[in-house]
């Protein structure tokens, strides 16, 4: 029996290379666990029927003496990332039976390493939401308390890893969709620098914000997945050139050991007292590591969420125009082509998606463009400059990942109250910096221990800072348990 609870990618790598167990053994162990738990958690929308065949191929590669960091490692993939010949629905009725005709670049990279894909995971429809309650195929439940949300939009990928239904996963993060659920489920979720990971083959939501990011049990595993997927891609011209050589060496240490905290925002309204208490404890731990904590006052930080909820729907409404029932996906027949469009979109898109498309159409429409979209861009640019300035004085910026712990399924009915969950995470997407959520302990609510997370943001291109602080923080966390 393989102990999945304590297993990590790096441990599995050693065991697979040492032939302690085979890729087929490992995949079988995960399939058995999925069989047991997925019905309740609803983390996977589909478990592939060829998992063992994939694992056999990995075993053949292993037998030939090949080894890659992810060879034979069972992974879960968010349902908005294309794998050739497999369904990809973005948890939407409009793409319920859509079959991808090519591999996303991240998938091609994982295939090259011989990773094993277990299945596609649940999410908020088209990644719009923070709880997977907007999935057309049911909500994903939190493995720590099944009456609560797992977070979202990458809730399925995160719940799968947290409940040992996968060893690692890919999620996507447009405003916190990897980090917030990671915080709710007590694992590591990372959003790389904008453009660091190719989005070729990812269904677009907010094109100036979207990032694919690793989901893992610990920092080391997150780093392994990140290193497998990052890099320039000619098929995605928004990817940044690999200028890592020009950065200071990767083994570099956080220069002054200064962490900035925007106390104004952390002490603001609407932040759960438990979250604040846990954050203060984390800050004390960081001080004990020798970090100096510096109050940073970013003038326009509190406008970030408003900026986000203008730019994101504007871009989403444009991106989602392509789903019209003409070339693929759901088609509802009407009297004429216009009716085909109206009916296909009307029945294919869920409520939140329709809401954001209308919102985006509004802020882009004549007469409102300057007041909303144009202004949001100006504020965004100013925020970027404020961040660059802040990073001249601090190595990292820390905040809680989410302003509250995982809520009860169905508890938040009003869309705006769910949007407020993104208050700490959207900024990294708006300014394009890398950010990570790391487990920072638990809070007991109604007899259940519910996880909390701390978020670190680093300057553009400095994912290495995040891994470094992550590893140190992880050690402290372990010691305090």
């Amino acid at each position, binding site marked *: 029996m393989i102990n999945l609870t304590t297993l990590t990618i790096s441990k599995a790598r050693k065991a697979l290379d040492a032939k302690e167990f085979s890729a087929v053994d490992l995949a079988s162990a995960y399939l058995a666990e999925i069989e047991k738990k997925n019905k309740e958690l609803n983390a996977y929308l589909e478990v592939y029927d060829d998992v063992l065949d994939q694992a056999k191929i990995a075993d053949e590669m292993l037998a030939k003496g090949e080894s890659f960091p992810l060879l034979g490692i069972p992974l879960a993939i968010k349902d908005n990332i294309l794998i*050739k*010949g497999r369904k990809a629905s973005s948890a939407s009725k409009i793409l319920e039976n*859509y*079959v*991808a*005709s*090519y*591999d996303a670049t991240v998938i091609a990279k994982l295939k090259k390493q011989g990773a094993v894909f277990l299945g596609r995971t649940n999410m908020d429809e088209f990644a719009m939401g923070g709880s997977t309650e907007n999935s057309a195929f049911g909500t994903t439940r939190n493995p720590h308390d099944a009456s609560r949300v797992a977070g979202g939009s990458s809730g399925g990928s995160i719940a799968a890893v947290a409940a040992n239904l996968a060893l690692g996963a890919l999620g996507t993060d447009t405003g916190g969709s990897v980090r917030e659920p990671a915080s709710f489920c007590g694992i590591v979720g990372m959003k790389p620098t904008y453009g660091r990971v190719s989005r070729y083959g990812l269904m677009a939501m907010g094109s100036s914000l979207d990032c694919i990011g690793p989901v893992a049990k610990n920092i080391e595993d997150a780093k392994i997945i990140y290193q497998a997927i990052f890099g320039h891609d000619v098929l995605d*011209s*928004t990817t*940044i050139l690999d200028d890592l050589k020009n950065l200071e060496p990767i083994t570099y240490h956080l220069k002054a050991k200064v962490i900035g905290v925007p106390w104004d925002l952390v002490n603001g309204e609407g932040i759960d007292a438990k979250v604040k208490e846990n954050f203060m404890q984390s800050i004390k731990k960081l001080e004990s590591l020798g970090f100096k904590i510096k109050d940073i006052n970013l003038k*326009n930080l509190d*406008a970030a969420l*408003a*900026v986000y*909820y*203008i730019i994101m729907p504007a871009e989403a409404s444009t991106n989602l*125009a392509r789903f*019209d*029932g*003409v*070339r*693929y*996906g759901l*088609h509802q027949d009407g009297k*004429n*082509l*216009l009716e*085909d*469009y*109206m*009916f296909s*979109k*009307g*029945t294919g*898109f869920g*409520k939140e998606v*329709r*809401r954001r*498309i*209308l*919102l985006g*159409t*509004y*802020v882009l*429409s004549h007469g409102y463009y300057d007041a*909303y979209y144009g*202004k*949001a861009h*100006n*504020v*965004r*640019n*100013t925020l*970027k*400059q404020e961040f660059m300035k802040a990073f001249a004085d601090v190595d990292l910026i820390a905040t809680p990942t989410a302003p509250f712990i995982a809520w009860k399924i169905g508890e938040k009915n*009003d*869309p*705006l109250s769910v*949007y407020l969950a993104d208050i700490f995470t959207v900024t990294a997407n708006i300014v394009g910096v890398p950010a990570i959520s790391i487990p920072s302990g638990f809070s007991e609510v109604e007899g259940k221990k519910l996880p909390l997370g701390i978020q670190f943001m680093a300057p553009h291109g400095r994912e290495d800072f995040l891994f470094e602080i992550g590893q140190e923080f992880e050690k402290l966390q372990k010691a305090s348990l």
Partner: protein
Amino acid sequence: MDIKDVENLAKLARIELKEEEKKELLSDMDSILGYVRQIEEVNVEHSVFNSANNNVWREDEIKTREFSRELTTSQFPDSQDGFLKVKKIL
């Protein structure tokens, strides 16, 4: 905003809406727009950010990509002789 505005937006976005949903959407839009309107108060100059992302050029060369014609055409809602069939436009 009123119901007429919601209807107009839905028309622009080519989305068929049911009557009761129009009302719901109107109240949602009011609350969301009420929130995001706070950026009106933010005092910033018109700025063009000097982004690190530069224009990306490539040679205009023919390169074959691996798309499956079969997978693509098999998903057409309607087709004839391997072509995508749509309703009359004019």
